[in-house]
Every structure is written in structure tokens, then in C-alpha cells.
């Protein structure tokens, strides 16, 4: 998307507005045109002028799927950044046109599960009114670019990845060459030394780095992905100068467009191309394409990236101390636990990053009611520069909170069950919608997550176990990221019944690995007990404060096998 230069309404960094991208007239016109276009398409569909075969590609391009019980609308939340005003509008949509709730996805988006086709144009208009849309949340195009949910706030960050993510979003939106790729295409970015965006598991993962000369650029990873054939991405470029980013991405996409398998949808992702071509040959193709192309015509003007970056200028941080934080922690052990688990270090002294857990014990991972959305918006208004992030872990992040406000913020979150002290712990389970909603599912995932969550609800035990990721997918498409969980659960069908495969040893970070299958599938009711046994074995095996993945890599799978065998023997917890 080309953009004309219009300055932000308020001065960046002024704290009067959230530090995020704002539409200029070009964006506004484009989104508005798409709403009008879809309204017309829906009218023609309802009048019978368009058949389903003709209409289906249009509805998918606007994020509208048909699911098990109803239509589903997937709304893009670019790199997970959402303002309090936008969150309130999502609440309004949930109340007015849906059933009072929404679902945060593992791609930092939000889904509404019950919209009616006749209402969708109005919903899209309501989204456009707050600079949101559902474009490119489906189809074989470049999907919502995801980024570290602590972007612009993390203490371990070299650079906020969101300006780059926004540049890529603008460049790739409605790009004619990338509207009909061989298959969907996902990018993720991080600007930190820790990977919270799973960049190794995307079609293209970008890591913002500094070279020995002190220049900022990107490490480019290509060919990662989950689904039917999970693969860890391969290093394609150690250091790509910042100015060359779009040309290099274009070179990768050209090679993919030319050689990607369009004949077989199961082999159409770029990971298969990289794998089948071989890394060195693939790199050579990309480099040849890159050398031959008109780079200056593709790369963004540095002034344009600077203009975009200005939107994301840090809020003005005050010089503050932690106030009575320690006093409150001492007086309220549950608050102290919340601070221990859900609060992360901020780049500014006296500030913190807070995770509001959308994983209450026994709840549906990622589901928020409209009332909770409004509460989240109110908290952001009051304590976090009117801004939030949706994490791919299906939680909501407040990026800029004064430490002295943590107690008041926690009290607010508690009023509607948003303060569960479990971020990163075993009950912070990622789960896709599974067969309770999804038409592609082979089994349910949400009820499995709920049972495990209830089983491990004891907070002392969770603390003892420490950080441990459980992720659940309702089919091989792996939207629940089960392949990269310490303990992954995949729901399948076996002889007309739901059956669950356990994988161990997945890792979503820079040291990425794909989990390995533990053994035969389990019945749904066996799963929580087997997870409990696996955790007990981990606790017996771990040395010091080793994470599950480190213990697993040290001892291998064999010591964990008895979790399945013992379950078969007596059918109960060990």
C-alpha cells in the first residue's frame, strides 16, 4: 500500500495518544472502499446474483469463514497492537452482532464466532471506524504480521519491531503479486535477545540485530512452520542491511511464487520448497533474484520507515519509583504471586510490563467477554498509555505500567477474573478452538485445556513446576502450536472417537525444536492424568531450576514413557 505523508494528530511520544500506527487518508479510503465493496458483494450474494462458489473467495478475503455452528469473522490486530478505543469497539461488536464475547487467537487476532452474513458489512464498517479490518486474515496471501508482544517496552529489546512490521504490512497489503501465492504466508518479527514471537517457526522470521560496525539490520530465517509438516526455519541471511529489507523479502517471495508447489496444497508452503530445494540452492536462487532485481524501486525510502517509526515513538516515561509496591506485596501474597508471574521487566526505570491472563482456571483460553474487553480498555486508559497487545499466547499485555500503579491495576483486573497469576506457567495453556467451533477439527481442544487447567490450579504447585508450556491443537493444522510446546497435545480421530497424541520437547524460541511423539493416542479423559504423570517425572528428573525442555534434552524421552504405561496399568494418577 502506498501512503501519503500526513503527520499524526498528536505529537508522537506525547502520551496523548497510544504509540501506534494511525491511518492516513489513503489507508482510510482503501479500507472504506473494501467495506463498500464487500457490502455490495453480500447484497449480490443475498439476492442470488452471486453463487457460493463466486462469493466464497470474497468472503474469505474479508476474513469470513463458515464454521461448525455459524459464520466466523477473524479481525486483524496488526502485530497484536490494539488501543483502548479499538478494544471498546470490539466489545460493541461482540454485544451488537455476536454473542457477547470474542476469542484471541495464536496469531494475535480476534475472532467472533456467531456473526450473521447480513450483518458483516456493518461489522466491517464498525471496524473501519476505529481503523481496523479483517482483510488478509484468510487466503493465500501475506497474513497479519506478528511481533513480540513486549515490543517497544521490553528491557531486553534492541529495537521496537513494530515499525518494520507496519512497513511490511503496508507493502504487502493488497500487493498484486502476493494476493495469490501458492499458499498462505506468515511473517513474524522480534527486536529482542529473547524470542517471544516464534520467529523460527514462520514462513519468514526476522530478527532485528546489530552488526559489529553498529548498524542495525535483520537476520532472515525462512521456511519454518507448523501444520502437517512442522519444520524449524533455516538461516538464510545473517545480516541484511535495514535499507534492503523489502527488496530481499521480494526476492524470497519471487522465488516462492515461481517454484512453490501449486499442484499439492500439502506441499505448497515455502518450508517444503526450502526443504526440497536444499538450503544452499534456495539461498542461491534468492541471491540471484535479489542481484537481478531493481532494488531501489522496491526498497522503502528510509524517510518512509522513519515516518512510520515516529508513530511508535516511546511514550514519555516519567521518573518514578516503585512506590509502595513492596508493602503491597508483603500485605497481599496473591498480589505478590501476580507480580512474580505476570509482570516483566520494562526498559524504563520504574515501569513494568503486565500480562492480563485470559486463562482463568477451568476457563476457555483466549475467550473474553465484552465486559472484560471494556475493563481491559479502562485499565489501559488509566495505567498503560491507552494501549494493549494481544499475545500469541492468547493473553493481553499492558506494555507501559508504572510499578507504583501495579497494585491498583491488579485490583481492577481482579474484578472480572483477569488477574490469574499464571503467565507462562502450566495453566497458561494455548488452545485452538478445536471441534467446539472449527469445521476442520478432528477433536476438541478447549475441554482438554479446561481439565488440565483445573488439575493444576493449585498455585503453590504451579510455582514449584515453574515455566512450562502446554499447547493444544484440534487437528494437524496446528493452530494451537502443539509442535513447539514443552508438552504438546494433538487431537485426532481414531475409530470414530477423539484421540490425543502427546508430544514432548518442543521449543518456540531461538533454540527451536519440534516436539517428539511420546506414544499411541489417548482417550480424552486419560489426558490430564498423563500430563500429571509427565510433570511428576519432570520434577523427579530435573536438576536445579532446569526448564522442562532442558531436562528433556538432557535425559531424552525414555524416562517419560512410563507416564503412558502407568496410565494403562491402573487408569489413574501416579
Amino acid at each position, binding site marked *: 500500500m502506498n501512503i501519503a505523508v500526513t503527520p499524526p494528530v498528536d505529537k508522537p511520544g506525547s502520551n496523548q495518544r497510544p504509540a501506534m500506527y494511525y491511518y492516513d487518508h489513503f489507508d482510510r479510503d482503501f479500507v472504506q472502499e473494501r467495506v463498500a465493496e464487500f457490502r455490495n458483494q453480500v447484497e449480490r450474494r443475498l439476492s*442470488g446474483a452471486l453463487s*457460493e462458489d463466486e462469493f466464497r473467495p470474497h468472503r474469505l478475503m474479508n476474513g469470513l469463514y*463458515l464454521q*461448525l455452528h455459524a459464520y466466523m469473522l477473524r479481525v486483524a490486530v496488526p502485530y497484536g497492537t490494539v488501543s483502548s478505543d479499538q478494544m471498546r469497539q470490539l466489545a460493541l461488536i461482540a454485544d451488537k452482532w455476536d454473542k457477547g464475547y470474542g476469542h484471541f487467537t495464536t496469531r494475535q487476532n480476534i475472532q467472533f464466532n456467531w456473526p450473521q*452474513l*447480513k450483518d458483516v458489512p456493518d461489522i466491517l464498517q464498525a471496524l473501519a471506524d476505529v481503523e481496523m479490518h479483517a482483510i488478509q486474515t484468510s487466503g493465500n496471501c501475506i497474513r497479519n504480521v506478528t511481533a513480540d508482544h513486549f515490543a517497544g517496552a521490553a528491557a531486553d529489546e534492541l529495537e521496537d519491531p513494530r515499525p518494520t512490521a507496519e512497513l511490511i504490512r503496508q507493502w504487502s497489503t493488497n500487493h498484486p503479486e502476493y494476493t495469490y501465492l501458492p499458499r498462505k504466508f506468515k511473517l513474524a518479527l522480534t527486536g529482542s535477545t529473547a524470542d517471544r514471537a516464534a520467529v523460527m517457526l514462520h514462513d519468514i522470521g526476522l530478527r532485528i540485530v546489530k552488526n559489529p560496525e553498529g548498524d542495525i539490520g535483520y537476520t532472515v530465517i525462512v521456511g519454518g512452520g507448523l501444520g502437517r509438516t512442522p519444520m524449524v526455519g533455516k538461516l538464510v541471511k545473517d545480516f541484511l542491511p535495514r535499507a534492503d529489507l523489502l527488496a530481499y523479502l521480494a526476492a524470497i517471495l519471487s522465488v516462492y511464487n515461481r517454484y512453490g508447489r501449486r499442484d499439492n496444497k500439502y506441499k505448497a508452503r515455502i518450508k517444503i520448497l526450502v526443504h526440497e530445494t536444499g538450503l544452499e540452492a534456495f539461498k542461491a536462487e534468492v541471491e540471484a533474484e535479489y542481484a537481478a532485481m531493481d532494488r531501489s524501486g522496491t526498497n522503502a525510502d528510509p524517510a518512509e520507515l522513519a515516518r512510520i517509526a515516529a508513530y511508535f515513538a516511546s511514550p514519555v516515561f516519567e521518573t518514578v519509583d516503585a512506590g509502595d509496591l513492596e508493602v503491597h506485596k508483603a500485605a497481599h501474597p496473591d498480589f505478590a504471586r501476580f507480580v512474580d508471574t505476570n509482570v516483566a521487566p520494562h526498559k524504563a526505570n520504574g515501569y513494568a510490563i503486565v500480562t492480563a491472563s485470559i486463562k482463568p482456571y477451568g476457563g476457555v483460553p483466549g475467550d473474553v467477554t465484552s465486559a472484560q474487553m471494556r475493563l481491559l480498555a479502562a485499565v489501559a486508559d488509566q495505567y498503560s498509555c491507552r494501549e494493549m497487545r494481544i499475545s500469541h499466547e492468547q493473553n493481553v499485555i499492558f506494555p507501559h505500567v508504572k510499578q507504583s500503579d501495579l497494585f491498583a491495576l491488579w485490583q481492577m483486573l481482579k474484578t472480572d477474573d483477569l488477574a490469574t497469576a499464571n503467565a507462562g506457567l502450566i495453566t497458561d495453556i494455548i488452545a485452538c478452538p478445536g471441534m467446539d467451533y472449527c469445521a476442520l477439527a478432528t477433536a476438541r481442544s478447549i475441554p482438554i485445556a479446561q481439565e488440565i487447567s483445573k488439575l493444576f490450579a493449585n498455585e503453590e504447585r504451579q510455582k514449584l513446576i515453574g515455566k512450562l508450556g502446554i499447547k493444544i491443537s484440534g487437528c494437524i493444522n496446528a493452530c494451537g502450536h502443539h509442535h513447539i510446546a514443552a508438552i504438546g497435545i494433538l487431537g485426532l480421530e481414531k475409530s470414530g472417537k477423539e484421540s490425543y497424541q502427546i508430544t514432548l520437547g518442543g521449543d518456540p524460541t531461538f533454540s527451536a525444536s519440534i516436539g517428539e511423539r511420546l506414544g499411541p493416542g489417548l482417550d480424552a479423559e486419560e489426558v490430564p492424568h498423563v500430563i500429571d504423570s509427565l510433570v511428576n517425572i519432570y520434577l523427579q528428573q530435573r536438576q536445579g531450576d532446569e526448564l522442562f525442555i532442558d531436562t528433556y534434552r538432557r535425559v531424552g524421552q525414555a524416562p517419560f514413557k512410563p507416564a503412558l504405561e502407568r496410565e494403562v496399568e491402573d487408569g489413574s494418577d501416579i
Partner: protein
Amino acid sequence: MAKFKHPQILTCSDLITGDVMFMQEGDWNRDHRRAKVAHTEEEAAALLARGLADFAKNRVIDVYLVDIAISADGHPEPIHYREKIRTLGPTMRLDLGKQAEATFAGDI
């Protein structure tokens, strides 16, 4: 077409609302328990033809046959868990979907 093994009913999604529907004697109905049951392959083919005609008329989408068994109280019930869930609503949100509606709670 897959081999005919069980009695079948015909389902679809309503074009406008997306709601799950089942073909009964005269027209589509939201309640699978009222659905017309095909006991032979020929009856199933006839049901499907009616459904596809409505698809062609742009009234419904996603038309397909569902294997059922007749329950103790004489109603058709899908055999496969996917289709069972589809007749009711999300299994962990009993306040949503057809299962939440008073008309579906009692006898038909």
C-alpha cells in the same frame, strides 16, 4: 458417494444466518430431531438432490448427508461426535447454540 451404511439425514447452513439446519418433510428446520430420515441409498440421494436444489437457489450452503441412529425415543441422532456437536453447540458453553434454547430442551 460413500457407501450407504446407516440411515441418514440432510444438513446445511443457512446462507443468511449461518445457522445449522436439517431437512424435514417440507423444508429446512433447525431441529435435527424433526429431520426426515433416509433409510435407503435412494432416499438419501433424493434428500441430497432436494438440498442441492436449495443450494443452487442460494438459500443454503454446505449441504451434506449425516449418518444417524434412531434414539430410544425415536429421533434421529448423528453417530459421529462432530455432527452431534453441530446439533447442539459448543460442548463447554451450554449457554450457546441450540442446546441453550428452550425449544430444544424438552420434547418435540
